[in-house]
């Protein structure tokens, strides 16, 4: 069900989710999620497989249409706020047959960004070489994840939605990515990150959100000792 901006409570500066329900047939992936998230903070979403983390992220990105409930991103619907959102999914969202630079040049055009300078800049920012001519399909998994992050930040969005960015990435590269994300948060970006490796983000994230059975079970500013990624 799509919702017009007029039906959404004005909530500039925050991301709010009101009674969000998302059903796939008879299965409810989200069961009435109610939450407000402060802008400019680093929110880490944790939970078991099937808890609804990815569905929540896709709903915030405007890819999953709520069955019921509303989402307000900086006072707009996700579709209206699409220029402010950068989305990194579990798959790379990149064309395997093209090089990283060719991919980013194409996606830059979708945001009315022309020329090579911005794609080159973000590729260097994620620690890759813009001159790399081999196709993305021949990249290592870690390089693909970095290039996928580069695509998500290409248009300098205010909000970053990252779905398991550290999966299949070695610990050194993952720590580098965390450092990069910390820098972005410090620069005022709002980050939502779904992961099973919450320990990497201890001391960096502003909030840990535990999801369970399609609902938010707990929110905390720190990981409970010994709990790490397990739900409370």
């Amino acid at each position: 069900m799509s919702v017009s901006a007029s039906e959404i409570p004005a909530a500039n500066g925050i991301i709010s989710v009101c009674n969000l329900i998302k059903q796939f047939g008879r299965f409810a992936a989200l069961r009435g999620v109610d939450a407000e998230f402060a802008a400019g903070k680093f929110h880490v979403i944790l939970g078991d497989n099937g808890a609804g983390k990815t569905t929540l992220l896709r709903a915030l990105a405007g890819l999953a249409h709520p069955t019921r409930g509303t989402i307000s991103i900086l006072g707009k619907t996700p579709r209206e706020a699409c220029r402010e959102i950068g989305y990194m999914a579990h798959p790379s969202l990149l064309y395997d047959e093209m090089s990283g630079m060719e991919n980013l040049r194409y996606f830059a055009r979708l945001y009315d960004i022309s020329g090579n300078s911005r794609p080159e800049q973000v590729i260097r920012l994620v620690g890759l070489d813009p001159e790399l001519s081999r196709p993305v399909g021949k990249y290592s998994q870690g390089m693909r994840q970095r290039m996928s992050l580069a695509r998500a930040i290409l248009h300098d969005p205010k909000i970053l939605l990252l779905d398991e960015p550290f999966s299949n990435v070695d610990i050194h590269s993952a720590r580098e990515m965390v450092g990069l994300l910390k820098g972005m948060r410090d620069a005022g970006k709002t980050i939502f990150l779904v992961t099973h490796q919450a320990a990497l983000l201890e001391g960096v994230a502003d909030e840990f959100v535990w999801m369970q059975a399609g609902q938010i079970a707990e929110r905390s500013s720190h990981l409970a000792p010994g709990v790490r990624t397990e739900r409370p």
Partner: protein
Amino acid sequence: MSSFWSITLATLSKDIRLEWRSKDALNAMLFFSLLVVVIFVFSFDPLAEESRHIVGGLVWVAFLFAAVVALNQTWARELRNQVLDAYRVSPASANSLFVAKVLGNFILVSLLEALMAPLFVVFYNLRVLGPAWQLIPVALLGTWALVVNGTFFAAMSLRTRSRELMLPLLLFPVSIPAVISMVAATTNILTGEDSAHFYIVLLLTYDVVFTTACLALFETVLQAE
């Protein structure tokens, strides 16, 4: 250049680059059409006079089936790595994507027609008795009719389990008026017995109506889950 056409051209050149590197659709279409031509020649072995009456139907049936191969490929590459989601979250217009895909398929199918038409002429010993130049608008309008609906229905069947089967099931019934017009116009031009004018106008009307409908509905199809 407006943002719409800039994105359309960027998507079109990206698709042409990808097709040039993989040649997935073009190779499949060429082999398929070649097979159809050869099988029909051995099956019918027609005289020149008979050919003029049946070849319009054979040509367009061959191109219709071959086009389906290309149409399925167009969207298949957008599904790998869920690249289509990157487009869906962007502010780019849905119709930019649609127009780029239609133009890409139009170029591919036109290229196939240009390569296969001489083979039909040679194998069926064809000589055009009517105004041959009219074959150009028939080919352009007929190809557009196939690819505009084909691209739309291929996008519609993207998320279905058996999309290769769904596309012809959706496309062929809707294409019947266009196919009848294409075949009748081609036959009239080849035999010179009647004017093809009526069928050319019919094809033009069909193209305008279905292009408008597809453009009006494509955003819904793209944003559907």
